[in-house]
């Protein structure tokens, strides 16, 4: 059975199809969630909450083919809300120093971890998940122009951080 069929069944209230569909996307969901929270319990909590919200809302999903986009939107909205409330996920700058000095390399994940949630979403979706800017605009429900601006700003911020790090460790 293909994804679209599963989506249609899930939309019309078939629990088994819904479960299969979430399982189909679970790795992707988990990785995105983990990128935000950097720990397993919070990432799993995000999976549960996303499943909950998706099940509740699936009757409102008009086009089954947008299921994936819609699901990731739910997840990212949750992650952004949670990280706003819970600053612990933001890496303190000291940690960057420690790890980078050990590896002798600066890992982008840590830098991305310091970005605003909305910038972080864009970097994760674009560079890690390989979504196009149009997909990202769909997921975040923003015009493509806004996404382009945010990406640009996110990259600028990363460059600033990189530049500063570069100054230190050059």
């Amino acid at each position: 059975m293909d994804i679209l069929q599963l989506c249609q069944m899930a939309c019309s209230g078939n629990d088994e199809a819904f479960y299969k569909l979430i399982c189909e996307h679970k790795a992707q969901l988990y990785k995105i969630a983990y990128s935000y929270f950097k720990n397993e319990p919070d990432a799993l909590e995000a999976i549960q909450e996303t499943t909950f919200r998706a099940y509740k809302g699936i009757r409102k999903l008009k086009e089954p083919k947008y299921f994936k986009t819609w699901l990731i939107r739910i997840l990212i909205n949750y992650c952004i809300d949670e990280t706003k409330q819970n600053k612990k996920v933001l890496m303190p700058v000291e940690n960057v120093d420690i790890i980078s000095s050990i590896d002798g390399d600066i890992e982008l994940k840590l830098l991305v971890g310091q970005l605003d949630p909305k910038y972080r979403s864009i970097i994760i979706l674009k560079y890690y998940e390989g979504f196009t800017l149009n997909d990202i605009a769909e997921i975040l429900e923003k015009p493509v122009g806004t996404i382009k601006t945010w990406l640009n700003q996110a990259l600028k911020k990363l460059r600033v951080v990189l530049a500063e790090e570069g100054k230190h460790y050059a």
Partner: protein
Amino acid sequence: MHEDKLYENGKNEYNSIAIPSNIDESILAGIQKAKLYRRKSISQRAALLAACLITCALITMIRISPVFAGYLSELPLFEHIVKLVNFDKGLKSAVKNNFMQPVGISTEHESIKLSIDNIIVDETRMIIFYTLKNNGNPAKIRMGRVDLLDEKGEHLKAAYGITHYYSNDDSSVESNFIDVSFSKETTIPDMLTIKAWIEDVPISSEAVSIRDYPTPTQPKYLASVWELSIPIDKSKFESMKQTYDVYKTIEVENQKITFEQIIIYPTRAAITVSYDSRNSMKIFNFDDLCLIDEKGEVWGSIKNGISGSKLSDNTEVLYFESNYFETPAELYLKGSSMRALAKDKLEIVVDIVNKKLIKAPDNKISLSSISSAGDSYALDFILRKDPMDEGFHYMPFSSIFRDSANETYYDNGSSSSGGMNDGNYFNEITLYIPGDKKYTNPLIFTLDNYPNRISKEFFIKVK
């Protein structure tokens, strides 16, 4: 350090994030939580609906206390259905005995979603539970016309209807059911297609009188057709019936009535009754006929749905609540009173020019006015009822009538509303007849029901 390299590193790191083995538990927990949440919201709607039923039946004014509403919200899902079929203990029992087939499919047009949630079906009747949810259409909606089709797209040979409950509550959700009565000609399909036209009911929320609702001739439907196909698992009710041959004749005020056979299906009990063709009166209805067991448990007639069907001029099948799942040790038929009228008094003759009643059975009925109503003429009657008819609305006229040239016509529907005056209960009955016909005055209407009674207590052993 090159930027792309950085992304590459980050990406590798990202891709190597390990998926924990217990992730499926989190997914299942999320579904479970959502189901609990959904049950809660459905039960709250059930509480609302129960409140509407009570208000609309005008039995009594009950305010649902927060405690009671809270209690309802804790009930499991099927209690919602039980609330819907609360008036029929046989259907309630069918639900409790897991005789319901879950469906769970839906379709949405014009921001209105039609879901078929469950069906209860056996070889004599089918109850289709549906939910209409208005997700933002400005219309005040209700289920309008419904077509039931078999696999070949042909109309199901069955009678069906929906009982609507009006309320002042501006709820965007209608949870209700289609009651389908099968007959001998019905072939139950394996796949049933339901085509629904949703009605826009242009009424103000203050409307309480039946007069404020459109007459049956002028419904306004939304443009879309909501169409769904549902499977019917016939193996689930195969040979599910209990048949009792009774063949007992009673005599009430010289009228002979024979109870022939009782078949008890899960959804209803069917009692075949025949009337002696030499009877001087026509028997309209039994007031209190019921099935009763050795413990005094009673199963009454089906009030909110199809209550009977005619097999021939003198034979009919009456439908009662089912005790299929209870299987009492002993069973009896019990009754004492019936509505009946002399066969030579069954006609009401109306002079539509002088707006007068020329012939009526007695002075219980009077003609109050004849007026023009859209494409119809509205004939207003007042019918004085017996005290025991307090909550009953008489629809006394057969839908076929004729004029003095012996031309036959169909009416455009009728309505009945109740009231009380000087201690007398009465119904105001409006009969709509086509306004574009050249009638030969006067018109002759036939009575199908009338507040005239004969009585005698009887008690018949069924098993």
